[in-house]
Structure formats: structure tokens, C-alpha cells
């Protein structure tokens, strides 16, 4: 026993090193790298505050650019106001719409921290649970897709952007309407992403628009994701290899809108009911 203690004393530093190193490795491998965003503390309030403080400074320096962006968006929205439209057919008249109900609700938020050049990137927004944001809401900017909220604290939320290999969303080609999946190769250029699973019989050409499907219920349908920029088809494969240029410029991201789907719960619970019913018949 005495010998063991002597041994430990002599190799105290090495033992300490082993303990700390093993501990670090355990943390590294146990913090489930992508989904456990609630544990990883970018959403913890004090780190959020520090980033927020820096961002205020940066935003100040970029006011001009942001003004232009907002002015553009204002102009876009203004052009859609009903007053700007007139009826070509004078025999018809405007009807107050009591059939349609609002489905998506948008909240604005500011990006207080963002990474674009890592293997898996995250964004931090300056709004959290108290601002009405919940996990799994979609995040967009100027009508193009940014990502999905993955975890929230009271005042901040962390977003899984397209630039994260864990981001999954179905997309469709404008026009033909064929579905594919968007994937971002880890660590690649933040201006581009890949679209997979679009079969070869579908005509795809450079410059085609890629839109959201609206299936995942994170996003409304027909939001911009990007434009086809390259086709690297391999003869032995059945699917296109499509590279798209993303519509969102993640390096200049500043103001975003968080989309909440008012009917999401209803849609999900229906699906779960159905799955449970099927599950009973199968084996569960």
C-alpha cells in the first residue's frame, strides 16, 4: 500500500494528466456531437451575452449594408400590399377571406453569433423561449432558408443551419417538383451545398431553382434554397450529383425570421396516431 502511494506520488503529474485527458475524451465522445446542443453551452446565457455584446458592435459597423437589405425587403413587401393591385376583371369584386386561416407565423430575431467555416456550424439568435421561440422552428432570411432551431434558453436560441451535416430537409426542383435531400459536405465552402436523391430521369440544368417542399413543417413550401451551379453526374449512379449555390449568404447573416407553424402540432399528432396504429399491427 505504501509502495503504491509512493508510486502515485512520484508519478503524480502523469496520473493527473491521465485523469484529465480521459475525462476530456469522455466529455468529447459523450456530448453527442450534434443533437445535444442544450448541453453545449453556446445557448448558456453568459456566453450568449458576451457574443451579443460583440455583435452589437459589429452590427453598428455594418449598419449601411443592413439598411440596404431591410430597405430592399421593405420594398418587396410593399409591392405585395393589396392596395397595389387592381382588378382587371371589373365584374368580380374583393371577398373577405373567411376560408383561409393563417398557418405560419414569423418572428424577427438577430444573429448574435455565427460560424461558417467549421466542420459543423451553429448560429446563436438573440431571442429564446421568452421570445416565443421553440426547438424545431424554421429560420429564414429574406425568403431563403437559414436553418432549424435546435435548442433554446430563456433569451437565446441555437440554430442548426444548412451548414451543418446534421441539417436535414427535403427540397424540390422548381418546375418539375421532384424531391431530393439537401446535404452540406462537412467543412466545405459555405456558399454551396449538395442535393441528393434526385433520379437521373429528371431533367436538371444549371441555374434551376431549388425550393423547400413544406413537408417537414419547419418551413412553408416554396422558399428559396438556392440555384443549381454544377452537375457532376457519374455514369454508374442512378441519381444526379447536384451542387447548388445557396441563396442565403451565411457570412453576412444579420436579421432572420423564425417561422412557427401554427398547425404543426395537429399535423404531427395525426402522423403519430397513424404510426401507432400501424405499429400495433406490425410488431410493437
Amino acid at each position, binding site marked *: 500500500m505504501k509502495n503504491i502511494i509512493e508510486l502515485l506520488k512520484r508519478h503524480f503529474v502523469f496520473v493527473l*494528466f491521465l485523469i484529465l485527458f480521459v475525462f476530456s475524451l469522455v466529455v*468529447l465522445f459523450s456530448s453527442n456531437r450534434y443533437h445535444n446542443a442544450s448541453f453545449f453551452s453556446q445557448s448558456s446565457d453568459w456566453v450568449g451575452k458576451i457574443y451579443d455584446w460583440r455583435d452589437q458592435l459589429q452590427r453598428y459597423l455594418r449598419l449601411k449594408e443592413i439598411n440596404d437589405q431591410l430597405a430592399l425587403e421593405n420594398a418587396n413587401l410593399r409591392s405585395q400590399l393589396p392596395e397595389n393591385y387592381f382588378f382587371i376583371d371589373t365584374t368580380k369584386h374583393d371577398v373577405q377571406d373567411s376560408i383561409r386561416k393563417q398557418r405560419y407565423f414569423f418572428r424577427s430575431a438577430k444573429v448574435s453569433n455565427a*460560424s461558417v467555416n467549421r466542420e459543423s456550424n451553429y448560429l446563436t439568435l438573440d431571442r429564446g423561449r421568452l421570445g416565443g421561440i421553440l426547438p424545431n422552428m424554421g429560420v429564414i432570411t429574406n425568403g431563403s432558408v437559414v436553418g432549424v432551431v435546435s435548442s433554446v434558453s430563456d433569451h437565446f436560441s441555437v440554430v442548426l443551419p444548412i451548414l451543418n451535416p446534421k441539417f436535414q430537409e427535403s427540397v424540390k426542383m422548381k418546375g418539375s417538383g421532384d424531391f431530393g435531400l439537401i446535404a452540406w459536405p*462537412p467543412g466545405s465552402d459555405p456558399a454551396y451545398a449538395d442535393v441528393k436523391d434526385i433520379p437521373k430521369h429528371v431533367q436538371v440544368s444549371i441555374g434551376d431553382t431549388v425550393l423547400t417542399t413544406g413537408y417537414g413543417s419547419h418551413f412553408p413550401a416554396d422558399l428559396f434554397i438556392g440555384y443549381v451551379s454544377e452537375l457532376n453526374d457519374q455514369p454508374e449512379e442512378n441519381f444526379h450529383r447536384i451542387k447548388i449555390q445557396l441563396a442565403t449568404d451565411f457570412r453576412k447573416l444579420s436579421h432572420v425570421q423564425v417561422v412557427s407553424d401554427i398547425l404543426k402540432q395537429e399535423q404531427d399528432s395525426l402522423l403519430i396516431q397513424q404510426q401507432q396504429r400501424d405499429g400495433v399491427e406490425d410488431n410493437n
Partner: protein
Amino acid sequence: MGSKTITSFLRIFFLLFLQALVVSRLQLLDGFVLPWVYIFGILMLPFDTPKWLVLILAFVTGYFMDLFTGPMGMHMTACVALGWLQPMVQRLMSPREGYDAIQEPTIQKMGLSWYLTYAGILTFCHHFILFYAETLRITPFWYQIGHIIFSAIGTLMLLVVGQYLIFNKKVKN
């Protein structure tokens, strides 16, 4: 020793913020070069710092860097390895008369070539472990090696330039 220790703590603290708020935002060649200058706080610990303290400080530094950058564990792992290697490299490179007269490893006191070897070995080891702890993949191999080497060179350049900017005045006064 007392004031040296406090200076070291403050330096580590300051570098963490510098890294998180400024250096991590640099977009050099689309993120191909990613300097991690916060390890300077560990490299600059005085020669007479006990080994266990170097380890603990490195661990804590890594922990806070992890808080800033993302998934926990990457910087912790790399920094603990750095904290263990640092005294070893110092011992391997000790001059014949020992380190007694000098207290901190700086370019001014140890000379540029000594410093580049010392910081170069440690920076490369740290970046190597950090990068593979982050990706957990080994393809595409040459791209990754290039990323590590050029990031390490970037870090070294910032360290050297930073030292000439900061410490020159001190020596003259």
C-alpha cells in the same frame, strides 16, 4: 512569483476573449487557415510553474474555449495534451546552464530560433489533436494535414508578431 502568476492568469483570460471575439472570426482562405492563438497563455507560463499547475491551467483554458466554440471536449482534450507536453518540450530544449536566470519563454529572452522550435512543436501537436478531436475523420487526408499545418503556421505568425509588438517596449524600458 506572485505578480507573475497573476499576470499569467490575466494573460490566459485576455487571450480567451481575444480568440473567441476576434481571431475566430478571421476568415483566412475560407477557413482553411484557422489560428488558435489562445494557447499562447499556456506557452508563456514561467519556467518554474509546477507541472501540475500547467496541466490544470491548460485544462481550464480548454474548458472555457469549448464553452465559446461549440461541442464540449475538443479544446479540453487538445489543451490537456498541450499542458502535458509543454514541460517535456521545455526540458528537452533546456540550455546547458538551465533556465534559472530567465523566467518566461519569450523571443526576446530565448532567441527566435529557440522560440520557433518550442512554440512550433507545441502548436502543431495542439492543432493536430484539436482538429482530429473536432472531425473524428481522416479523409480527405492531405487537405486535413494542410489545414493543420497552415493553421499552425498562422498561429505561430500571430504569436511572433504579437510578441514583437507587445514585449519590445518592455525590454527597452
